[in-house]
């Protein structure tokens, strides 16, 4: 792909961010813009779909096409857009509450359905936009406005959940390492099928435990470990279990046909460009079935 695109083109459509200074989500947008530019993709060729949350404003600031749906509903819309027009690069993005709380049903099914989109979760272990309640990824015992005595529930572990649900590309990044994040986004977009990139993206305002420093001290980058083979499913489960999910890099990948390849009679030409007048010409044949 001839890379004649620049980040400036994306900025032309983007709004002024309203995130708190220092919010991890800035790095996620920056890394995504660079990844798209590096892949030679222009803003009109990309659609970013979000739900609701601080992270749901991802597509306000990305500068590509966007669809902002309701809380928890980014994935159904994103998958449908890809079905309608497989030429588009479709990215769904949102928070841990959006994706693993209210939208977790859609997440599991998107993993097994394997439509060729990329899903970025800005996982800050907290509900940011609603000013600091517990989230499905909050650690047990974590104190928030709704869990003043500490969270009683065990957290969702997105990585093994994704692998077990049939996700063919499972990666994890950190907002403190934009370059690495960019490489993960590029690999995820290039992966044919549903790709998850869970990003530890600190909420500097409401989560005083999982800070940039805390993540830096606790994360191990698997991409730097030469002996790690991301195509080995058993190894992937083992490493996310042993480290309690505190790893970054490509955790697991597997090539398999995507959903659209599996459909009967599916035309590679996007549905949106198909001729709609055909059934009128087929009237006799179509009516025969009802005689």
């Amino acid at each position, binding site marked *: 792909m001839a890379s004649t695109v620049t980040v400036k083109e994306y900025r032309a459509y983007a709004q002024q961010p309203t995130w708190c200074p220092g919010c991890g989500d800035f790095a996620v947008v920056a890394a995504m813009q660079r990844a798209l530019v590096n892949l030679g993709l222009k803003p009109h060729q990309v659609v970013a779909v979000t739900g609701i949350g601080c992270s749901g404003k991802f597509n306000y600031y990305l500068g590509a096409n966007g669809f*902002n749906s*309701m809380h928890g509903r980014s994935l159904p819309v994103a998958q449908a857009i890809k079905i309608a027009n497989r030429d588009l690069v479709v990215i769904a993005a949102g928070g841990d509450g959006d994706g693993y709380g209210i939208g977790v049903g859609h997440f599991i099914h998107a993993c097994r359905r394997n439509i060729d989109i990329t899903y970025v979760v800005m996982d800050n272990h907290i509900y940011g936009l609603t000013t600091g309640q517990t989230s499905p990824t909050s650690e047990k015992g974590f104190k928030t406005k709704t869990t003043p005595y500490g969270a009683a529930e065990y957290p969702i572990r997105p990585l093994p959940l994704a692998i077990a649900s049939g996700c063919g590309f499972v990666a994890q990044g950190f907002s403190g390492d934009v370059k690495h994040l960019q490489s993960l986004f590029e690999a995820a977009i290039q992966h044919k099928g549903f790709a998850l990139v869970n990003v530890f993206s600190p909420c500097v305002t409401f989560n005083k435990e999982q800070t940039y420093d805390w993540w830096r001290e606790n994360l191990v980058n698997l991409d730097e470990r030469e002996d790690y083979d991301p195509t080995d499913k058993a190894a992937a489960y083992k490493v996310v279990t042993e480290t309690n999910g505190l790893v970054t890099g490509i955790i697991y990948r597997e090539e398999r046909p995507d959903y659209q390849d599996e459909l009967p009679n599916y035309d590679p030409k996007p549905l949106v460009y198909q001729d709609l007048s055909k059934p009128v010409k087929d009237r006799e044949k179509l009516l025969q079935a009802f005689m």
Partner: protein
Amino acid sequence: MDFTWKIGGAQGEGIDSAGEIFALTLHRKGYYIYAYRHFMSLIKGGHTNYKVRISSKQHRHRGDQLDLLVAFDQRSIDENLHELKSGGAVLYNAGAFEPKFPADVDVVPIGVPMQQIAKDHGSIVMTNMAAMGASAALVGLEPDAFDDFIAERYGKHGADVVEANRKVVRAGFQAASEATSWRARLPELPPEARGKKRLFMHGNDAIALGAVVAGCRVVAAYPITPATDILYSLLKLLPEYGGVVLQAEDEMAACQMAVGCNYAGVRAMTSTSGPGFSLMTETLGLASVSETPVVIVDVQRAGPSTGMPTKTEQGDAFQAIFSSHGESQRIVLAPATVEDCFYDIQRAFNLADKYQCPVIVLTDLSLGLSKQTVEVDDIDFEKIAIDRGQLLTEEQVKEIAANGGYKRYALTESGISPRALPGQEGGVHLAISYEHTEEGWEDETPLHRVAQTEKRIRKMSTFDPAEFGVRQSGDASPDLLLVGWGSTIGQIDEAREALKAEGISVGHLHLSVLYPFPAKEVREAIESARAVLIVENNAFGQLQQLIQLNVGHYDHIHHCRKFSGEPFKVFEIVARAKEVLAAKSVKEVG
């Protein structure tokens, strides 16, 4: 003149397939058929029946009475005998049970050992075929009448299965011929009608076919009675055109997916029934505020909650019109006939594109699942042309981009903002669930809130509900005006004719659009009648309340409601109409 036949037994005994073969055979002979399935939300046991009304003219309901009942068990007699005409026959499975009839009923019992015949000539699972053969003898069909269908249906199981079924039919025919001299007369068919090619379809089929003709290429849905048949039809129709039927994880996803496809420029819909529609209501608001077209079919069943999944009701008008928080735009159509289903779904797609809002098509179980004869010419593929509304082309978008830039929610005079698609250069935009500026940027200031709300209201102002389904028939300025909506048209029509035959001046107003409400037409009709009877398949009188809301309160409005889960019978409407007229004349004289 018509003839009605019903077969009843336990679910799992092949009642449905026997009924359908019987209906289709007579349909192909040139009769008009209306077939009604009575079934239950279980797989084995219970009671199920299949009623076929056979006529030389088109009827849009199952008929009040019954000429011949085929009973596999006592329960089939107990549940259906009340419909049997005086002197009608009950063909029962002799040997399987000893039938009991109330002493005061004038019935001709005909015992044929159908189960034994099936065992002797094929296998016990072919008992329904013995019943078919026996029925053929009693209504004057030939013993080979079903041969073609048996081959069509069972050919895939091998030649011996086909042969065994045919043998059982013939043995059943023979046994019934010998068992009784009772014979029914099928209606006389005019020569030009004999063997005439017509369609046999239900509302769900017509919705599916119409959707394909309208250019719908994606259907995302979650299985639910009585809407699932729409998916089955589309699974046969869509792949030919590159289309996709996607079984979503739930109805929230299904509806959001339909929205997503439409946003990307592909016509898409979802189909469901009440419980699923409840889950979709959040998406009505999303489609409204983001101004994304979407078509939702609600094949109503009896609620609330899980309610009665296999029974009919017109209970979702309020939820179609009022559900979802905030104030959101939408259009609600309520087709009355199979033909309406075919055209209204096409209109729905055009309206959704034109007004960039959700369009809900409300049918119900009785319209959705009752297969009936339809004239080929009445399913016209060219009557409604595809109109995508203000959908911009690549060139138009480029031109707009060069002249100040594209704004998704531009404040236009009509209120309709031209729509660019993702993928078009120069048309990059954000569609959004929050209140927003013209650019689609989240905004809560009064300036934008008021301007965008007024724009969304303004765009609906050119919608004229009268164009989309206000039918009037019968006498003008009548003594009694019957008012209905949706699937009840057949019974109300026949009730009108029956009353007319008694010299009563009667009119019929039928609505196939509920929102925006055709207030002007309804007001005129109501004010010109001496008495009004609103006929609805629900308990709360939803249309009556809509009339009160949109038109006003009138002392001369009365109601006729049925909420048992069954469609109306004509005599119920006629009786209620007479009651109202009698009370009225007493009042006017006194």
